[in-house]
């Protein structure tokens, strides 16, 4: 997909920059199906606490999870900027994640991205696969499979 787009000989990928709390995270655009506004979420009993419930996405029932709760942060406060990003993953299927705000789309070349080691116990870091440098700031790029995989 976008990986194949070659500029100046370097492989570049596009990322959606989102905000959770005060930090910026990047989500690879290849996995993003859709971004929708916050809407009515139907609670489902007896599921993991970070799963908010299910929503109706144009006739399809899609589970929605809170990135904040998953990362061990305080629960979401829904504002006008709150969005649900609908991800399409190979193994987990379609799932929505709630984020505080969606800021922009950036393009990063491979040399702008640095891998991080994830041997720390910090849950937040475990979901981050690499860090990208863009517009003078840093963007932590999320490992979506780790985000979507259920913790026991």
């Amino acid at each position: 997909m976008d990986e194949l787009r070659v500029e100046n000989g370097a492989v570049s990928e596009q990322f959606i920059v989102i905000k959770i709390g005060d930090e910026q995270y990047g989500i690879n655009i290849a996995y993003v199906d859709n971004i929708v506004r916050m809407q009515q979420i139907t609670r489902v009993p007896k599921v993991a606490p970070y799963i908010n419930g299910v929503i109706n996405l144009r006739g399809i029932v899609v589970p929605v999870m809170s990135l904040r709760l998953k990362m061990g942060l305080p629960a979401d406060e829904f504002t006008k900027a709150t969005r649900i990003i609908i991800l399409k993953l190979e193994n987990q299927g379609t799932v929505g994640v709630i984020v505080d705000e969606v800021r922009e789309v950036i393009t990063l070349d491979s040399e702008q991205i640095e891998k991080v080691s994830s041997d720390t116990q910090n849950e937040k870091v475990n979901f981050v696969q690499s860090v990208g440098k863009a517009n003078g700031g840093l963007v932590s790029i999320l490992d979506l499979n780790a985000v979507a995989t259920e913790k026991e």
Partner: protein
Amino acid sequence: MDVSQYLEIFIDETKEHLQNLNTQILELEQDSENMDTVNEIFRAAHSLKGMAGTMGYKRMQNLTHDMENVFSEVRNGTIKVQPGMIDILFQCLDALEGYLASIQESSDEGTNDNEHLIKALNDILNSKGGEAPAAEAKEAAPAAETKEAAPASSGDSKEKWKDIKLTDTEKGLFDKAKSEGQNFYGITVYVQETCILKAARAFLVFKALEEHGEVITSKPSTQDIEDEKFDFDFSVIVVSADPLDKLIEAVKSVSEIDSAYGSVITEADFAQGSSESEEAPEEKAAETKPAAAAPAAHQAAPAATKAGDGKKAPAKPVVNRTVRVDIEKLDVLMNLVSELIIAKNTLVSTASSDSTAKNGSFNEQIEYLESVTTNLHESVMKVRMVPIESVVSKFPRMIRDMQKSLGKKMELHMTGEETELDRTVVDEIGDPLMHLLRNSADHGLESAEVRKERGKSEVGNIFLDAYQDGNNVVIEVRDDGNGIDVAKVRDKAIQRGTITAEQAENMSDKEIIDLLFLPSFSTKEQVSEISGRGVGLDVVKSKIEALSGEVEVKSKLGVGSTWTIRLPLTLAIIQALMVIVGGEKYAISLSSIQTIEDIPAKDIKLVEAKEVIQLRGSVIPIIRLSDVLEIESTKSPEDDLMVVIVKKGDKLAGLVVDELIGQQEIVIKSLGKYVNKCKFISGATILGDGEVALILDANALV
């Protein structure tokens, strides 16, 4: 000529003709003088021949040609129909089905000439109805048997896992496992030849093994095993820290597993394995060839045909599933769609017209739209519906064959073959039904002598009745045999530790009979002891439950048993009662609801620390949905309770809800992987305002 585009039609029609032939030949056996039947058979055989010829399936054409010749003589009166001939004809049909299965899989008829059948048919022709055919049939049967025995003896040992070639990564794993003190085991599992759902059993074996270790590889591949592309054995390589005995024991605990052989793989085995691997392909080819070629020479039993096919590289079936639709049904659909478009157009124009006339006309249009969509839904469902005849029509033949193999006299009576069910359900229901019929025939019915003693007629009766009951279709398998011996089942259950003696005291007969559906109860040893029931009943139950149906059994010792299967007419759209619990909306399928009651809070009694109510003489446990769903009820404890009485089989339960909304037609949507953890939520639906409501599965709550 390219005939591939006709393949689907060919397969469909061939199936129909074969089914027709099966039924007609059965009739011929009963009434060998009936010329109408003979004519019908002749016509079917003739069309089959023509079709096979057009499609270029020479072997199929040859066989049907000879069959047709025989019928032609029968029609002319030069040959008389006799039992030996019927047997051969049935063998021919089996062979034709073998061709068809192979065509369906790979669009190739295979290499089996079925020469002995052709010879037998010619013998009938030549002898003009002499003794020869009967003798030939006998000859053919042992031939089939020896062949079945041959592969077993020709294989170097029972431990076929030694044929498995390990890849480099797997070899790496071997070294790693060794260093961690784990062992590599090779195990070959033999499934009972009577087993119907082999893939399900294999899956259970894998599951059992994975509790002890990790399955590294298998032969055939897991995909093939899932698709049931194996004979009666498969081999696996397992890495585990547990001793071999434990693994073998785990495998054998799965029912309908005949035996399992295994041993530890040592470094030596391993070295040998890898050095062999270069020359192996040739060796393997040589090994499989005789197996495939030998049966090709003369192959009678369908089991042997399958063995030949199984060796071939499995390909995806080349044909899609189809439903034949009556053109009238399509016309109705077309009309409804045009009405829908008109309704839409009227709505559009109403919306843009003056506001004064708007409201009345708007409501009118909505009502019109509603009636059109209801009709459309009904018609689309009808298109998906097929009569269960396509499944049950093979059963008379099966019972006939079992009559011979079991040496019992029995008769199958069927009613309601025209009952229609969703295509997907019809496809799945065949195996469980066959299981129940076999159970009845094999274990339910007594032998002729015992029947005589008990004052029953010598011929045992099995009934298969299908009928529609509201939104359900009911299929009953009934026999007038021995019934289930509850005392024996109870003893067995206690002996096996399924229940304790005290528990048994408190259990009703019905509850004890229900134990038969537990997986642990279905192993062969027990079958003979507990009056026969138990073979794979757990599989029957799980298959039917997967179709959102339920199965029940009623039995009277000495009089017979009745197995009742209840299936929903359609899976996608149901009538539901919408309720509110703690401010959230839920749907309960109307089919499981008995009544709705208003119960004063003081009428709730406690029995064994459980809340119950008394309703028209019966004591019904109540379930507070707010507790189950982990939400605060909006009602205060003193208020009257709104109780929805639901029914599962004979059991009743009351679900306490806060409010009722009303009845509604809902479309069932899957909840997806993440949130389908709780078993009492069977799905979700989308309401008129776009909100998602969960569907409660009353069966799982009761």
